[in-house]
């Protein structure tokens, strides 16, 4: 599903080139649950953003569902975002001006889904995450864990093949974190490919495969 070949990411300043990622080769197939770990500045988030097509590699080839991402245009990337990729962030990134219901609905709107279908999908999500009673609340009225639930609901509402989670538990206390991780595990069991970045050793173990990065390079790649 995902195939990274000789991926480099660097920034050029006047006298030197600073490498964030160096010669990353990575194959991820459908249904995997991958955890990326590593110290701060190892390039975890950059790697995730490249996979999520939010950032571009400086060098190298990237194939997503056998399509060369390094060659496709912005429009095509938007198509991929709409149909195949969902995101979860450490800071939740919900739209403050929209209610829980409307936040979950947003990606479906861009997907061009019909109103009636949208209603049933959002209702489904709310039901599944036990949030029916909170559908008219604004993000600021929810706890961190609840906000992240909404963010996950939003990310998977469009039935993506791939879910990218950038430290999804970073802003949560451990009980909430556990709950989120259990949820991700269930989603993975249902067939969604998940890549998460985390610092937390315990939560890392939810992944079936752990990749460790150090100084922009893969230092280990183990399947548990």
């Amino acid at each position, binding site marked *: 599903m995902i195939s990274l070949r000789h991926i480099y990411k660097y920034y050029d300043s006047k006298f030197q080139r600073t490498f964030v990622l160096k010669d990353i080769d990575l194959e991820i197939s459908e249904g995997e649950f991958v955890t990326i770990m590593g110290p701060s500045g190892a390039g975890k988030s950059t790697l995730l*953003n490249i996979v*999520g097509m*939010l*950032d571009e590699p400086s060098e190298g080839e990237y194939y997503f569902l056998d399509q060369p991402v390094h060659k496709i245009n*912005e*429009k095509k990337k*938007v198509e991929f*975002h*709409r*149909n195949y990729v969902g*995101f979860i*962030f450490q800071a939740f*990134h*919900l*739209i*403050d*001006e*929209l209610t829980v219901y*409307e936040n979950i*609905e*947003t*990606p479906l*709107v*861009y*997907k061009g889904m019909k109103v009636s279908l949208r209603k049933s999908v959002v209702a489904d999500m709310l039901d599944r995450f036990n949030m029916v009673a909170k559908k008219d609340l604004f993000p600021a009225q929810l706890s961190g864990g609840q906000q992240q639930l909404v963010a996950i609901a*939003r990310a998977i509402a*469009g039935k993506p093949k791939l879910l990218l989670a950038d430290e999804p538990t970073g802003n949560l206390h451990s009980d909430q974190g556990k709950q989120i991780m259990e949820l991700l595990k269930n989603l993975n069991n249902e067939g969604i490919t998940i890549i998460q970045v985390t610092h937390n050793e315990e939560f890392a173990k939810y992944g079936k495969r752990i990749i460790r990065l150090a100084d922009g390079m893969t230092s280990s790649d183990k399947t548990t």
Partner: protein
Amino acid sequence: MFRNFLKTVLRFLKHNKIFAGINALGLSIALAASFIILLFVINELSYDHCHKNRDRIYRVNNYYVDFKNVMSGTPYVLASTLKSEYPQIEKAANTRFLRGFSLKVKNEYIGIPQAVASTSDIFDIFTIHLLGSSRLSKLLDDPGSLVLSRSQAEKIFPGIDPVGKEITGLVDGEEHIFTVTGVYENIPVNSTFRPQCFVNGKWTLGSINKTFKVNDTETSWLRDFWNTWVLLSKEAKVPELEKGFRAFEKKYLSEDPAHNYRLQNLSDIYLKSENVANSGIQGDIGKIRLFSAIAFLIILVAAINYIILSTAVSSRRAKEIGIRKTNGAGAGNIRNQLLSESIFLAVIVLPVAMLIMWLALPYAGRLFQTKLTILSSNILTYISVYLALTVFIGIASGIYASYYLSGLKVIDILRNAIHYGNKKQVFRSALIILQLVIFCSFVSSTFIIRSQYLYALNKDTGYYTKDVLFVHLGRDFKGYSAYINSIKSSPDVIMAAGMMDELPMQGSMTMMVPHFVNKESKVKVEGMAVDYNLFKTMGMTLVEGRDFSEEFGSDLTKSLVLNETAVKQLGIEEPVGKGLGGKTIIGVVKDFNLHSIHSDIPPMSIDMTDQYIEEVAVHYKHGTLSHLLPFLKDEWKKAAPDRPFGYSTIEEVISEIYSTEKNLTTIVTIFAIFTLLIAAFGLFGLTLFIAKTRTKEIGIRKIFGCSERSIIYSFLKSNLILVAIAASVSVPVTLLFMTRWLSHFSNRTKIGWWIFAVSFLISFFVVMLTVFFHSYRASRINPVDALRYE
């Protein structure tokens, strides 16, 4: 999708009340101001649109080759002759106002203003809707026909159908019986041709015959007192037709006619007749251009506000946009969202703007010196123009923010790594400078117009501009000499004399006089007719020769006085005693301003008259006006019991002549205030925003020992620089436009540097006041509070 946008924008505005409020306030004021201006402009441009065939309706004008001027007057026979000679001319009619026409209602004569004598063709040329049982054709063929407008018909025949009714009318003081043949719907006010009633054309012949002591006016080609209107066929070509007129003129006028017939389209008559004498009501294209430019500038200032504020708050919107993008929104979606937001904001402001406009309309009407009426025939135009303008301002102001924000990279937004760097700062500053340039230019222009106005009022005219008044005699006042002699007996009156028109004069009479040396070339000389003692009364001095005097009995018919310019331009040496046009030059008067200072002092030939004296100039002792007036009035009642007493002081005449300039000062001042107000709103919002985003910075600075004063100073300094740049840029801009405006005057005031200094100071104070409030508040931040939430 739109519902989703709408919710976001409404909630965003709710959370950013200051942003929304300032934008809405600035926009609604700007829209209201430009709506009022547009109302005026639309009304002016809509003139004569009510006449369906206006593309084919032409007025035949008389072009005088020698004088290079155009008169709208043509002979009576022209219309019928043109129609019979040219197949391209489908219809032709002559028109002339029938002055003093009145109708007898219940034994009392009611004067009918704007009564027009014409022929039946006139109803086929102009779009005049006949009502009820009106005859369908040949409405004016009968000499006794009378066609009334609806409002006149309702006044004269209340509650009944007047068609077929007989009524007594008064023409040239004689009674005649008229029969109503039709009634027409009132012609809209935005028509240059707006008679209140029509009668047969023959009724105007009598008075002309009488005045010229002839009886051939009906067939004469010499009496140019009628307007001639023609309706061309669809195939007719105007240049071809006009070329054919040369042969036509040879046939009917003379071998070498002094004037040519030319065609002027009906659509050009209201706004393009500045060179046509006696053209009837006219608009001022210059005024329309000026006001449109002002409307544009106000809208520009409001749009800039929106851009400045929306880019300022964009850092808050950025997060939402980043999220939307990760959720599958393309750049196009984001652009549409932001554009529809700004259009939405503009459209919700529309009703407020309409309300302000409606409230301000009566005041604006006085300011514009016109009646600002909402014409029902233009309502569709108003609505579409207003709506288009609103949507346009929405798009124009939203376009920058939408392109800027939609182009941001998601990764940068989510990393919080957007650089609100120099580029955006410079852009925003440039916009503020642009607003201030507009404002400063408005202020300086106001001062320049005002100083030109004062200059005009105080300029040495060459005659007294104080302690002189003009008593209005009216036409054919035979006993004026007796009246002048009786008022001269008052000890308050220094001197009094009759004259043709008030000074400075509005109208003019010109003639071509051959040069004294070079007989081939001709000089355009203006005439003026006076009574004995006028030079003395007005304080004009003679540089050579003598004044008109009763001692020489022949002065009335045989003498004339030239002004210095005439002597120079005609190349006369030793002028006194020389002959000119059958009269003898008896003196040379020092140049004085015949007209306003818009024009140079023309060469003038002044002679005496006892027929056209319509004013009496009275020079009185200073401060005696209040008890002189009752005396003048009493004497008037004795001399002319049947005429109303009327007078104007020379100050009134002069300020009337320059009332356009005075009004322009007021108008530009008001719009300058508007621009400043709108720009100040924007600046207020921006400073508030900057102060907020700098909270953390100010907190840190204070911890490291920065004083409150230096924080305020840092805010003020950056704005001072903006004002200084704007003020300097406004100097060439103002000079460019104002020298163009001043070029309409022959005598101009000097543009003083203080004008620009004052406009700089005004904008400086307003900007500082606006900025100071927030910068003071920002400087008072408690650093602990500022940094607590980091």
